[in-house]
């Protein structure tokens, strides 16, 4: 065993990573006799004794207080905005309602904003003071004791007999990555049942965000870093179905079409545009704001809401493609954009959406 091998084994054991006990015994034996390695071990012992920089005494309490001051109002505002949007949607629905009431009740899921009201409600319960606040002095005492123990236990432990083969169970647990929302349940066409959301369950709607009015669907976590990606704008999204929407930086991906957004855990998430093919052209789904996962895309502000189930007076039928009726704006061409009504089949990119959707080339 050479010096580097011996020292690396000592270093690995110090991190409580699994090492071969026989090899560690050899490394220790080597490091007791080799002058270079004796110096390495002496340096490690000094490193263990050193005390890392300590924060000012009141910083932690101040930081906790400040975090609540910043985030609690965000949550309350989001809940209020969602409630207000739900009310507005109910009013708009009543005003627009030309569909026979029983037909609407039988076929139409709740409007998207109503789903929002269910899902945007903060999951953090009202705070409760337990009175069990541990004083800073006590915490500091624990830290000092831990530090003292670490200095004694760290390097010396490695050189003590019988410790080499200690089981590593607590240290080898796999971490659980923080997923956006409730997992990638929005598969084909985001076709998860809005009814589940009406019952107030976890958001099962599509994991969509909007960026510059275009709708993107969550794809996966990526290993990309914001340090290397190109920032191209911001998107307002909670990146889940339950917390307040915040403005987040959007990065372009190397592929070009995809966008990247970092979640609160700092993990970069990739999103792909939601598209459909019509007449040999790719159309992208456009929408009003989508502040949370589970919110269905709706017609952008500049496209009037039809008042009838046949799309009138806004739309006229353009074509019937594979069981999906494609509409265009009355007095315009499909090159300006196409629309699809609620209730498109499972295979369609707009499946499950209770709203009219708008797509542009």
């Amino acid at each position, binding site marked *: 065993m050479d010096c580097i091998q011996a020292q690396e084994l000592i*270093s690995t054991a110090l991190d409580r990573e699994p090492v071969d006990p026989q090899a560690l015994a050899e490394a220790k034996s080597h490091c007791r006799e080799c002058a270079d390695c004796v110096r*390495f071990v002496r340096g*490690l012992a000094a490193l263990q004794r050193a005390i890392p920089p300590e924060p000012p005494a009141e910083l932690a309490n101040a930081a906790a207080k400040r975090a609540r001051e910043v985030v609690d109002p965000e949550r309350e505002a989001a809940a209020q905005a969602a409630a207000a949007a739900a009310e507005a949607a109910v009013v708009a629905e009543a005003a627009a309602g030309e569909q026979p009431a029983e037909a609407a009740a039988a076929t139409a899921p709740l409007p998207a904003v109503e789903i929002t009201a269910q899902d945007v409600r903060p999951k953090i319960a009202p705070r409760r003071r337990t009175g069990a606040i541990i004083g800073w002095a006590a915490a500091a005492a624990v830290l000092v004791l831990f530090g003292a123990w670490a200095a004694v236990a760290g390097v010396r432990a490695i050189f003590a007999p019988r410790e080499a083969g200690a089981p590593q169970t607590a240290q080898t647990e796999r971490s*659980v990555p923080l997923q956006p929302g409730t997992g990638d349940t929005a598969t084909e066409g985001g076709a998860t049942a809005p009814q589940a959301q009406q019952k107030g369950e976890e958001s099962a709607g599509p994991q969509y965000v909007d960026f510059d009015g275009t709708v993107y669907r969550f794809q996966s976590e990526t290993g990309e870093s914001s340090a290397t990606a190109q920032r191209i704008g911001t998107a307002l999204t909670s990146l889940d179905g339950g917390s307040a929407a915040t403005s987040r930086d959007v990065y372009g991906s190397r592929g070009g079409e995809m966008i990247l957004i970092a979640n609160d855990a700092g993990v970069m998430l990739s999103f792909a545009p939601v598209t459909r093919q019509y007449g040999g052209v790719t159309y992208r789904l456009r929408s009003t704001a989508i502040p949370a996962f589970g919110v269905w895309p709706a017609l952008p502000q500049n496209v009037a809401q039809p008042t009838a189930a046949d799309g009138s007076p806004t739309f006229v039928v353009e074509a019937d493609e594979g069981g999906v009726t494609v509409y265009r704006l009355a007095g315009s061409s499909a090159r300006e954009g196409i629309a699809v009504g609620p209730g498109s089949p499972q295979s369609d990119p707009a499946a499950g959406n209770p709203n009219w959707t708008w797509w542009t080339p």
Partner: protein
Amino acid sequence: MRDREASARLAEAARDGDEAAFETLVREHTPAVWAHAMRFFGDSSAAEDVVQEVWIHVYRGLPQFQGGAAFSTWLFRVTRNVCVDMLRSGSRRPVPVDAFERDVPVPDESGAVDLSASVERAIRALAPEDRDAFGAVALFGLTYAEAAESLGVPAGTVKSRVFRARRAIAASLDDQAGGA
């Protein structure tokens, strides 16, 4: 810092609205966040901003916390990202290593002052990737596998970087260790 399971339970309690649990979590983990920020920026004012920003991110993200042993991994990622973002935005710049000494804390144990200052100087002089790996493991208590996942490199690379960091620090401390 308490053991990992206790931290995860605290984070779950904080997620479920226990205010005292959140405060305890912040108190117990702020030293690691602070030390990482000090080693990154070498400046206590920047480190205060980092600590503040990290806990805002964590509190905001708590509803997404899924429990388990992931809290330290998450905290390390957030801390690292906050530091990198502050650097990228130009709001904070690292203080050169020479000027860093004035901001090194002063532990009360006699003889420990010089040693701690030397350690911090040596850590700040490390290559950033070695310092990150060393911090993930030594400050935040991550396993090599967890650090690897956070840093986007293989676990073997984490092991090498931590070892390289220790060798460099140990070499610079050897003289002091002889007299201590």
